[in-house]
């Protein structure tokens, strides 16, 4: 399946790797993740990873193609 490296890296995270990945990503975009937010952010990332896997699988070979301008 064709898929870009950044999405692949996100999809390949294990639950145990999410916290370190989140801190690295936050540092890269000047975002501070306070202690109060960590558990919920990690839970959301875990859910987003599951959901991303669903539509990436459905995209199949189209996964890394540019999106055409959307018309309803």
């Amino acid at each position, binding site marked *: 399946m064709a*898929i*870009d490296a*950044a*999405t692949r*890296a*996100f999809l390949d995270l294990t639950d145990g790797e999410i916290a370190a990945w*989140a801190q690295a*990503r*936050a540092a890269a*975009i*000047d*975002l*501070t*993740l*306070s202690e*109060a*937010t960590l558990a*919920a*952010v990690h839970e*959301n*990332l875990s*859910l*987003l990873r599951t*959901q*991303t896997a*669903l*539509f*990436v*699988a*459905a*995209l199949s070979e*189209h*996964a*890394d*193609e*540019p*999106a*055409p301008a*959307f*018309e*309803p």
Partner: protein
Amino acid sequence: MSFPGALQIAAAVRAGQTTARAETKAALARIDQHNSALNAFTAVLAERALARADALDARIVAGQAVGPLAGVPFAVKNLFDIAGLPTLAGSKIKRDATPPSHDATLIQRLEAADAILVGALNMDEFAYGFVTENAHDGPTHNPHDLTRIAGGSSGGSAAAVAGGLVPLTLGSDTNGSIRIPASLCGIFGLKPTYGRLSRQGVFPFVESLDHAGAFARSVEDLALAYDLMQGPDPDGDAICVRTAEPVADRISDLADLPLRVGVLGGWFAQGAFPEVLEALDLVARALDAKDRVILPGAQAARAAAFCLTPVEAGELHLANLQARPMDYDPAVRDRLLAGALLPQSVAQAAQRYRTIFRDEVRRAFQSFDILLTPASVCPAPGIGQTTMEMGGQQVSVRKNLGAFTQPISYIGLPVLAAPVNRPGQLPIGVQIIAPAWREDLALAAGLKLQRLGVVAAHAPEGLP
């Protein structure tokens, strides 16, 4: 108890049987009486409304022509720009923002038809939610059961109409934020085709998915308001370029014609409460819909919308997430933070799937004029309720109320959310889905159901 509709009020004002001032004062009195229980309004514009009503009455006395919504009070979700009032978008962060100098395009268009703006309405912060349990302004209460949510994110808009405070409100819908509260509050809600109504002056949530729309207590009121808001606004909203295609004069005839109606199965039947499926079956039988339609891509479409939303919104909010994250509603902040962390390529992939799923649904519409599905998986949950049972599992209320609405708004199709006629019971709505740009078909099907008595907006019992 029944509430006068927009058409009824406008006819009476035009005929001189009442005045715009009297109707405006009556609406203000209802807001004054009921808003403490509902918490639907976050601002009431009595001075502005009465001034406009007096000017309208003076024109009527002078024999001048007046608009089709003469004297009809209406209100808007508080992410619509109102001149002189901070556009809160349900947030603390925008409370100190400079107020806009102009009203949003849709407000201007309704006021050009002589409707009277009376206030701004509660919502989930930055439209990110299905519950309207706002951390800053408090929860909006469902008029049919004050212990339950009104749905969201346009919860104030739905509660204000359901509670009879005003006959017409505006809201926005990105993932279900018109259809969910319309369903839970037992009224009609219209989410038109993506790009149909201008979003100029509407604070964005996810521009790729944002729609503006309306709530009313009858199909006719909704069709008229929709017609008056249509038309290009390319300077204000680059995607709003389509010529107006009025429906109000056509849907009555259209409702008499046979419609080919299918019922969505598969993803759209999984996890729905039994009473929701029973309500859908009532509607399907009334429209002689016998065919089940399976959209194999629906679950992936929902997942794509679910991921596109926080990535795009997280990017929009990045500066505030960096500078003042603790000023957000925690339930919103934590999802925005997660979205901001995701690579943009996730959003690009989510965008890519839109055309694939759109084409799948277009093929289904080759055999059907209308597709039906529940609007929400359940009747209104309780205020403060965090989980519910869905498909035998305990799941988050906030993250799952929109399971049946998200795949449809993802591809921008027009939907009428219509309240199934279940007097004395908690409201349940259905989605009447039409092909792109065919709002007329959705409204005609709604009108047919309304005439048959299968859908109806009931006045709540026991509103204090």
